[in-house]
């Protein structure tokens, strides 16, 4: 895929982390002889993102997600391998590259804390060389889409977390980036706000044909936005493919939620009972046996309601990490 928007080949980031034992003796010793440990935050990963693609980049804390995004944004230098975004090497800080990307970090802010967001937007206009008519048109469009007309005139410090995230996102998109790195953009937000941000990201991507790489601990974000996911753990990629295929590959079971007319009896003969809530019983059954078990339930029990579902994505991801830990 030579025209990939993002191309990563054997990317490596190694940090030397100082470490010592507890206590005064060890502290004194470390003054003259500092001991460091090599940590491979990102360990030779490779992937490509096609133009306009949106990909979920998943992993537990410390997996290497943010480190990867920072290397792709030029904020961290690579220790090995190669990364290219829109054909550019990120660490070179070429203007054409910087003007076409954006990194939004849910736990950082680009807008000046003490100023109304409008002032910071103006600074971005100067720095990104956005012609005023384009700037005004896009700013007003984004402000209207996220309904933040009354927020952009207040100092950022006076905004709630969700409000701040919305103005941060507007600030990051004013230069119409073609590649968008979103690092947990919905962290700490309530479900309504998470949904708004998700809808907005989807709309922006659709309107501007942007390539999006999204990290999030909220699987609802990933399920709503991404068809493809890359799962990373301990700096290595464990899975790269369709979200649906992830479930098929890792979790060889489905869940059957069943409500019986005469109350929930003993259903352990049909599969593993994993949840019981009043008359509702949830069974875990091997994927290959789902149809047979469902047919048996319908034939042998007085079923009021029955749902067959893939396992929740959270469980699937957890399983991926657990398998990696065992290996």
């Amino acid at each position, binding site marked *: 895929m030579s025209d990939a928007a993002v191309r990563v080949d054997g990317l490596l980031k190694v*940090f*030397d982390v100082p470490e010592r034992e507890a206590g005064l003796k060890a502290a004194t010793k470390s003054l003259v002889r500092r001991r460091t440990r090599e940590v491979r935050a990102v360990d030779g990963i490779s992937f490509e993102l096609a133009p306009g693609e949106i990909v979920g980049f998943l992993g537990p804390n410390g997996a290497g997600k943010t*480190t990867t995004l*920072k290397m792709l*944004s*030029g*904020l*961290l*230098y690579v220790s090995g391998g190669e990364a290219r975004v829109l054909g550019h090497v990120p*660490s070179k800080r070429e*203007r054409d590259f*910087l*003007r076409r*990307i954006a*990194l939004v*970090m849910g736990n*950082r*802010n*680009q*807008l*000046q*804390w*003490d*100023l109304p967001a409008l*002032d*910071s937007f*103006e*600074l*971005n*206009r*100067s*720095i*990104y*060389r956005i012609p005023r008519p384009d700037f005004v048109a896009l700013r007003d469009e984004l402000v209207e889409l996220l309904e933040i007309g009354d927020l952009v005139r207040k*100092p950022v410090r006076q905004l709630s977390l969700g409000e701040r995230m919305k103005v941060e996102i507007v600030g990051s998109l004013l230069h119409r980036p073609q590649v968008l790195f979103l690092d947990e953009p919905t962290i700490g937000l309530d479900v309504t706000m998470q949904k708004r941000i998700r809808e907005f990201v989807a709309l922006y991507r659709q309107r501007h044909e942007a390539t999006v790489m999204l990290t999030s601990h909220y699987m609802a974000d990933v399920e709503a936005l991404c068809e493809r996911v890359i799962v990373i753990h301990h700096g290595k990629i464990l899975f790269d493919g369709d979200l649906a295929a992830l479930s098929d590959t890792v979790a060889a079971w489905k869940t059957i939620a069943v409500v019986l007319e005469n109350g929930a009896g003993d259903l352990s003969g049909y599969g593993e009972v994993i949840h019981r809530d009043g008359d509702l019983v949830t069974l875990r059954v091997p994927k290959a046996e789902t149809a047979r078990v469902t047919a048996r339930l319908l034939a042998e029990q007085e079923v009021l309601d029955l749902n067959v579902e893939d396992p929740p994505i959270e469980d699937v991801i957890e399983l991926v990490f657990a398998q990696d830990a065992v290996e």
Partner: protein
Amino acid sequence: MRAMAMTLKHELIGLSGVVERNIYLTKRYIFWDVAFFVWTVANTLTIVFIAEGIVATGGEIDVEQVTTQLLIGAVVWAYLGIIFAFLMETVAWERWEGTIEYTFMAPLSRAMHLGGTGVFAVIYGLVRASLLFVVVALFFGLSMPDANFAAALVLLVIASVSFFGIGMMTSVLPLISPEKGAQLGFIAQGMLLVVSGVYYPVSVLPQWMQWLSTISPATYALRGIRASILDGAGLAWEDVWPLLVIGAVSIPLGLWVFHRGELYAKRHGKLKRSG
């Protein structure tokens, strides 16, 4: 040629954006600035009163002249402090607020980024230093009938180029050490002034310190400004050319040092928020 002119124009627009942002931030904390100004006045008074103290303890000096000499030293000290503090905050403050990574990701050359901060620092510093000078001079009733304030001001502006270059070198310290780097900047400011004759003639220093004083821009700024205010002297070439030379060396050197610091920070992951 036209492309170069357009590039320059865009760079200057970016620089003016940084200046504008600093104006807004200063306006936001203007009353705190007034409070800090009161502290600076008090601090300057403690130094300038030394002249009166010498007389009170039996010393025989020209009080008016020594008072003015001390005042000039204190004002230049305060001015240098402002320039260094602003440049240091370019990194330290942004680290604290968590905006540093975004600033480093913006398509703005480091020269314009730091230059925008430097231009604002010089303007702001000149206003504050002038006010400080006037307030303390009025307090002591200094007359300065022969003073050539225009020459003094022009020399301070020329010296600012060198101060800015050195300031860039110190502003890299919070990049290298997020925890203690900002404090190290004050040490650099102190080292610069101790060899430059801030409250005494350079001739009283040990020889090795006098050699160091020749590469300090503050030496020529203090000497020239004192000559202009005390004796009404105009711009003296022997003060101007060293400042021009130090400025021509310190600006590219400052940018290079900052660039090296940025490389280090990006290699070792030191751009994280520290607040």
